[in-house]
């Protein structure tokens, strides 16, 4: 799998409250609608203009804070192709894999990328191609690969239960 | 008020339509009157489509005690800014009546309207012609006609000034 998209770049410790504000956690239950509030308190420009296929680039500890899965769902339903970060908070990492939203850890690629640039992620070769060079990232552990191949945790569970 | 004959479609309501049905308390925090029409009649079964489908010039037609309940002026704004030019009702509740007048928003008191609505003599979607000055209301769809009384006394003066604030300003100037 290989994806190419335009970069939206952010700093360190971007938390789930700015990705998907808590006040919507019980008033918005429709998945598609969640996309409307993505990054509302971080970057209103993103909220308005993000396109399907765009790629988010973050610093360390992306998605720290709450366990709310909407912080992944809201990006997924906007069609965000992947998130490249220096690191992910634990629950966010799990939630992203469970939702089938590709996430990649590569501090070098993050430093090489600026907002608006194009970036290509080649999952087969485990590399990120930027204007400043190509960077390798560690491949997913086998277990995680299985999850992603099945399209997320729920389809994975269905498959394993034979449903 | 200029004498003009208005034409539009009727949205017909029964008696005792309260302010929660006109403008639900859920949206009370709104402070911009122009944003209020989107919530009109959201909680009134059968009229949930009003906010989306009402056209500028359409009339609100109701029975007795229209606007009973809360003091919220939102319930006037949400119709005024939806472009409803006048409310026709057999009677209005007290606070609603004041709020309408205070905004220079025309209302007509139409005798027998409550029964006429119950008897189906005026129905949702009927084409109406309303002469505000003369108080003549004609249902062009079925030929029925009604008479409505405008406000009088001080209320008429306030209405003519365009609302209570404007009235008080005029009064202050003339002093």
């Amino acid at each position, binding site marked *: 799998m290989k994806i190419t998209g335009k970069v939206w770049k952010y700093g*360190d*410790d971007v*938390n*789930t*409250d*700015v990705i998907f*504000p*808590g*006040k919507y*956690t*019980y*008033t918005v*239950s429709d998945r598609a609608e969640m996309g409307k509030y993505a990054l*509302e*308190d*971080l970057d209103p420009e993103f909220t308005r203009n993000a396109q399907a296929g765009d790629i988010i680039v973050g610093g*360390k*500890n992306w998605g*720290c*804070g*709450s*366990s*709310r*899965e909407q912080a*992944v769902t809201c990006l997924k339903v906007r069609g965000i192709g992947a998130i490249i970060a220096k*690191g992910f*908070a*634990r*629950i966010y990492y*799990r*939630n992203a894999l*469970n*939702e089938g939203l590709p996430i990649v850890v590569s501090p070098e690629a993050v430093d090489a990328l600026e907002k608006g640039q194009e970036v290509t992620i080649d999952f087969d070769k485990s590399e990120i191609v930027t204007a400043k060079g190509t960077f390798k990232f560690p491949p997913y*552990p086998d*277990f995680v690969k299985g999850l992603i191949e099945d399209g*997320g*945790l*729920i389809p*994975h*569970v*269905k498959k*394993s*239960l034979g*449903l | 008020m200029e004498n003009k004959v208005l034409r539009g479609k009727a949205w017909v309501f029964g008696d005792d339509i309260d302010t929660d049905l006109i403008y639900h308390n*859920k949206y009370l925090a709104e402070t911009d009157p122009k944003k209020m029409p989107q919530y009109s009649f959201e909680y009134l079964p059968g009229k949930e489509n009003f906010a989306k489908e009402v056209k500028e010039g359409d009339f609100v037609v109701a029975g007795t005690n229209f606007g009973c309940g809360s003091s919220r002026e939102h319930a006037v704004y949400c119709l005024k800014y939806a472009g409803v030019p006048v409310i026709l009702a057999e009677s209005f509740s007290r606070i609603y009546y004041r709020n309408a007048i205070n905004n220079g928003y025309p209302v007509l008191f139409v005798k027998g309207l409550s029964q006429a609505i119950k008897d189906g003599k005026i129905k949702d979607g009927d084409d109406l012609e309303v002469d505000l000055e003369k108080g003549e209301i004609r249902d062009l769809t079925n030929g029925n006609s009604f008479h409505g009384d405008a406000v009088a006394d001080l209320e008429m003066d306030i209405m003519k000034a365009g609302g209570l604030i404007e009235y008080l300003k005029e009064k202050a100037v003339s002093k």
Partner: protein
Amino acid sequence: MGKTFAEKVLGKAAGESVSAGQVVIVEPHFCMSHDNAAPIWGTFKKIGVDKVWKPDHLVFILDHAIPAPTDKHAENHKQIREVVKEQGIRYFYDVTSKGGVCHQIMCEEGFALPGLIMVGSDSHTCTYGAFGAFSTGIGRSEMAATWATGQIWFRVPESMKITVKGKFKKGVSAKDLILKIAGDIKADGADYMSIEFHGPAIEEMSLAERMTLCNMGIEIGAKNAVCPPDQKVLDFIKPIAKTDEWEAMWADDDAVYAQELNYDLGDIEPCVAKPHTVDNYASIGEVKGTPIHQAFLGSCTNARIEDLRLAADILKGKEVAVRTIVIPASWSVFRQAMKEGLIDVFLDAGCVITNPGCGPCMGNHEGILAPGETCISTANRNFKGRMGNKESNIYLASPMTVAASALKGEISDPREVL
């Protein structure tokens, strides 16, 4: 070679000896969900399984917005009641005077037990480590999958050992310690790790203080945080334990740690986390005098009877200068506070005391901030927009610092009013 707490607990559950880095699949014990049980149920149904794996392992506790403020919240609660009925869920805490903030209920009702693996669809599930449990927060899909299969995967985490000695000085409490740790190692300082609290000072601490510490483990990125299941814990849980499947487990003395930190409580002083990150540490001296519009004493971090006592001591006989919202962590805390006359102290001081629940902590309920407003809070997060508006500011602090600040209408040093 010795084992860490995480290696021992996960190893026992996996039925093999495990070390950090390994992935294990285990059956968790209690699985806690709050108001989000309804959306989880929606996902669960998509899997195509009819029954949850063990109804008695599920615990539902309504707390995020109770009683329901809007019909959407009400619909959500109603769905949960229907699931409870349909699936025969025994442990359900509805909008009644038995409830409260989910993590508080889990601890005071005997669900949080030593050696149990527990998950919750809330990030502060790590609180139960105060009772020696291995507990961690997960997302909604993962919870749905767990209900269906009774299984969850974990990468056995590396561990961080934090050893604490000494005694708090007057006006200083566990919240100040954890804010100091967050400031030192930053919000990702313990990413993916299991934090173990060791040392004589931890043994001295009340269970409430340990809960405050473990609760905020997530704020430094940890998978879980845990204190030793000592006699204090055992005395507390034995009469109330909801299962006898627990086992007091602790790390070996020669366990291997990825990182070790040492703190002396005597060095800790009153402090805050400045907007907009939990690791934005400042000593009280640096921020003293900052004007505030609201003070909030509540949340799963600091709203237990011990916290209320500390705040009431400061507020007794005085009047607050800003609106001050007090939300006890549970109804049993509320009732205890009432018995001790603390509710009267708060009301006489001009505080609003609301029914137990999460309140304004995540921007859902009682006490949302307006643009440009500043709040000092005993909760656990000060992220931008967390309490409602992105143009507002939140300072995190201890109950004593919050109470002292409420009195003056500006951030204040509790040592000056004690």
